[in-house]
């Protein structure tokens, strides 16, 4: 990936990420998050991970954030704009974030593989696979069990949502 593009999208992504937290207006926060997702997708494209980039946009920007925006607009959260900062919560959040970052840096630093670039996927001689086939084959051969477990988890979550929303109706 061109380093200029990498830095451009990284800076944009982090900038809009900060704007998600810093903005008082919930709609502005949500839209900043969308832009941040787009920049992340651009970084994926830079790593030749086209499938991941497209799915990032389809799922997060195209579905999840549309629903977020939908809910925010329906609720019309005016209280959020006026609310005062809770110093204790900010302090606690900062401690957790710094602790997490320190742990991440520690693990990456101590792990010898942290210095090396990730090895590229190797294809056998003369073999050609499209990205999507590679993803599918990996999912359904090496990671079948986690894939199934995630499927069950999503099913549980779906049923939970239905149960909760039905109870509200009564």
């Amino acid at each position, binding site marked *: 990936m*061109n380093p200029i593009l990498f830095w451009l999208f990284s800076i944009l992504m982090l900038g809009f990420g900060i704007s998600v937290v810093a903005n008082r207006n919930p*709609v502005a926060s949500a*839209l900043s998050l*969308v832009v941040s997702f787009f920049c992340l*997708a651009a970084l994926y494209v830079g790593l030749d991970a*086209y*499938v991941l*980039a*497209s*799915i990032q*946009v*389809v799922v997060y*920007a*195209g*579905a999840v954030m*549309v*629903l977020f*925006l*939908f809910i925010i*607009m*329906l609720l019309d959260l005016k209280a959020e704009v006026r609310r005062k900062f809770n110093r204790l919560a900010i302090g606690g959040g900062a401690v957790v974030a710094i602790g997490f970052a320190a742990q991440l840096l520690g693990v990456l630093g101590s792990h010898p593989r942290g210095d090396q670039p990730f090895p590229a996927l190797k294809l056998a001689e003369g073999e050609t696979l*499209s*990205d*999507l*086939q590679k993803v599918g084959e990996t999912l359904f051969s090496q990671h079948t069990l986690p894939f199934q477990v995630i499927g069950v988890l999503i099913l549980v979550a779906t049923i939970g949502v239905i149960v909760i929303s039905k109870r509200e109706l009564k």
Partner: protein
Amino acid sequence: MMTLAFFNSIPWEMILWAAGKAIFVIFLVVLPLVSYTVYAERRVSAAIQDRVGPNRTGFPTTLLGFKKDLQLFLGGLGQPIADAVKFILKEDFTPGGVKQFYFWLAPCLAMLPLVSLAFIPFGSSLFGEKMVIADVNVGVLGIFAVTGCSVYAIVLAGWASNSKYPFLGGIRSSSQMIAYELSMGLSIIPILMLFGSMNLSDLVQYQADNGWLLLPLWGKGWSWERWLMLVPLGISFIIFMISVFAETNRLPFDMPESETELVAGYHTEYSSMKFALFFLGEYAAMIVGSALMVVFFFGGWSLPFIPDGNGNAAPLFQSIFGGIYALLPNWVWGLANITVFFGKVALILIFFIWVRWTLPRFRFDQLIKLGWLYLFEIALANIFLTAAVLAFTNSK
């Protein structure tokens, strides 16, 4: 030295080709096509309602004492130009109480559907260059990524207008688009299962060699397996078509802007060029939807008897007409392919218009029920049907 190396590291040729193709497609083909679709919409609706429609456009020179008006083009073909002038010259009024930034942002985002044209192969090849802007292996996913984001324009417009009818339009639109996006995505999966790749130019090339997906008449298409596949493919075509109508907010699904209930829906508060951008975006989305239908089901740029940009046709036609193909240079056939593609798109656009002036509007609850209860389930069952057909034909 440093700067020179950097300058050379940029793939200029690729960038220039991509920019050239983008400018050609968007400014020379799609935007004129948009304005003439609006014109066709008026003329076709007039024909259906037994009226005349805009059949003359020009300068009213009779007002100055001349005997005849000065006509710009034949009939009303100058109408789109007059419309554009009108849109630009009208007062751009921003109502008080709107959320300024988002009010301006929404019409800009309305042009987003044009981005998905990057993935659509609009021709075979011209001078050895593939006629698709982004020839990627995830074309289908890319298109769904872009269409999924086109709802932002409508939602933001509805919210930023700070007025109840636009707001209702925006809310309706987002729930409608989410409902139909799912069935649209699922209806394409049978094609991907049959074809096994997401590269759209390969899909079109396959159809050029082996018969369109809905017209398997030559190559490998002339087999009972492909004719059996017509059942699931026909179902997915119908679901896809209905979903495109819903995604582009066309009648019979134009709930976000149904005039009888919501004045004009999400763009009620917009005027002048900002309104025109919504208008253009809507028709651009229609063109993208038609182009997708052509690419997926009607063979993209391919027409039997016409070879691709390298002068090659399907073996059957090559053996009969090969001599004729060699008579003309290859770029003629490349241009013919581009014409064929946009000709097919225009035919489907006429179909869109025809439906609009034939069917009455659905009720909103009917629309949501149709999307979630019927189309989604049928599309899901269709995937299993396709898998069964594929397993059956492979085991034979």
